[in-house]
């Protein structure tokens, strides 16, 4: 059976809007265009109803109370609001924040800015499987620690952190726990109470909702979290985030949550099967390929593989009818290979050869088989072109070579 090209397999970057989500959004662009903050006419009430309905749908997905959902422009803003908001609000209590090295830049760069303001930040290392060591966390906590910020699941390697255990430790010590939930929410079960989460960043477009809308979960009880606002204005969202609400986006966000909740058990199983089919297909036909990060504690739709001796960007170029991404330096603005893979202890040589596959709702078995075939074909072709592969086959130990890299 012929597959339709190009194939999209980069669902950690973004996802298409589900047609059911779009349908729910459409009336809010035209007939129901009101400002949710307009309290004195029906246009406003209709918009507000759409927003409150969505707030409830989002809260239900993560086991929260609707009042604990603050709408934002996306998860980058949510991470900023959570971390800066707690840091500024609780400055008198302490100035120490704990995070870890494979966080998204929205967390890492926010922490770096706070360091410039005089806060102290501990960046926990990760183990070879991509997870933090809970003993490292316990040791890092000081009387000055006010916040722990750890992602639920990583955007490159899909590795899931021991969130419930971290939540327990934070609670014992009376420290707030912020979670970047972007890659996990809507994909795997997330429950803010079971997981002991006090704040969590969510993004709609990572699970078939629209771009430009996200939320921050902010716990109201046991403990109540207060935030200093990062955006000042009309006092929307209980003063935590001013600005007119993106009503159509929020309605779509809510619908995406409702669909995710209903379909998650079946969908995650289906994607896990596709992911394993992709992995098994590649591993059966190629030698010297390596999965980066834990295969057990991993999002069901993620596969991150290093293809030794084949540079990632050249591989992407060869499979240009399949949209995936690479940890290679050449695909990044900085010319540095992936800091996430580096943190795992993956050598820079292998980091340059990594490809991230992110499966999604609309991928099919045929697409997975086509992708496997193309990847195998291009890797074999590029290895024929690779001096490193030739040297390795001659028995030369590449790590012992004197490469000049000044």
């Amino acid at each position, binding site marked *: 059976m012929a597959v339709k090209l190009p194939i999209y397999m980069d669902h950690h970057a973004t996802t298409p809007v589900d047609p059911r989500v779009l349908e729910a959004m459409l009336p809010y662009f035209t007939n129901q265009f009101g400002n949710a903050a307009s309290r004195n006419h029906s246009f406003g009430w209709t918009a507000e109803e759409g927003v409150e309905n969505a707030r409830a749908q989002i809260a239900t997905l993560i086991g929260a109370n609707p009042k604990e959902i603050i709408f934002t422009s996306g998860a980058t803003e949510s991470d900023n609001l959570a971390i800066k908001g707690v840091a500024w609000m609780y400055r008198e209590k302490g100035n120490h924040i704990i995070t870890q090295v494979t966080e998204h830049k929205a967390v890492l760069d926010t922490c770096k800015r706070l360091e410039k303001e005089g806060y102290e930040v501990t960046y926990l290392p990760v183990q070879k499987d991509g997870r933090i060591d809970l003993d490292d966390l316990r040791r890092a906590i000081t009387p000055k620690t006010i916040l722990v910020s750890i992602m639920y699941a990583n955007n490159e390697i899909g590795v899931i952190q021991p969130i419930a255990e971290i939540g327990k430790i934070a609670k014992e010590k009376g420290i707030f726990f912020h979670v970047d939930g972007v890659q996990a929410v809507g994909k795997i079960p997330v429950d803010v109470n079971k997981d002991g989460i006090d704040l969590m960043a969510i993004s709609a477009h990572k699970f078939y909702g629209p771009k430009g809308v996200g939320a921050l979960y902010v716990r109201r009880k046991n403990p109540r979290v207060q935030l200093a606002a990062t955006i000042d204005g009309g006092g929307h969202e209980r003063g935590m985030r001013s600005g007119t609400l993106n009503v159509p986006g929020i309605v779509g966000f809510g619908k995406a949550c409702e669909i995710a909740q209903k379909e998650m058990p079946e969908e995650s199983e289906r994607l896990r099967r596709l992911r394993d089919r992709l992995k098994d297909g590649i591993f059966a036909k190629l030698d010297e390929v390596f999965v980066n990060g834990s295969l057990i504690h991993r999002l069901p739709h993620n596969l991150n593989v290093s293809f030794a*001796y*084949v*540079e990632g*960007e*050249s591989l992407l*170029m*060869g499979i240009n009818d399949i949209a995936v991404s690479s940890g*290679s*330096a*050449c*695909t990044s603005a900085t*010319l540095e*290979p992936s800091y996430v893979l580096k943190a795992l202890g993956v*050598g*820079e*040589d292998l980091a*340059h050869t990594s490809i991230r596959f992110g499966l999604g709702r609309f991928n099919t078995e045929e697409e997975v088989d086509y992708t496997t075939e193309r990847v195998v074909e291009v890797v074999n072709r590029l290895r*024929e*072109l*690779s*001096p*490193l*592969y*030739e040297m390795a086959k001659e028995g030369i130990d*590449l790590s012992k*070579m*004197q*490469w*000049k*890299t*000044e």
Partner: protein
Amino acid sequence: MAYSDKVVDHYEHPRNVGSLPKDDPNVGTGLVGAPECGDVMKLQMRINPQTQVIEEAKFKTFGCGSAIASSSLATEWVKGKTVEQALAIKNTDIVRELSLPPVKIHCSVLAEDAIKAAISDWKKKKDGKPAEAPATAPANS
């Protein structure tokens, strides 16, 4: 990132892929770059000791499409040239021919280094000095 048509053409149909016997006294080998930097080029030339003409050139490259294209182009260009003419090839010539964007200029620099390294390896052999391991050739990045 969009690639120029010429880069795509060299990537899809690389010229002169392969290896020459590196112990042959008339073969010069240049191996430049490093795996940790994401680029390694091996460029080999068979040079006629009487005429100094490069009669054969082969390459293998680990690197992005632009690195593959730069080294493929280098083999095309040096073939039939004298050693002196080959040494006159500048990385900027490669940049122009392949329309490389600024972030890919290092690929062309590496290709120029590879040409120089291969010729210098050949000269060393010819002058009767003990052959060195090719990986000590000058590299960039």
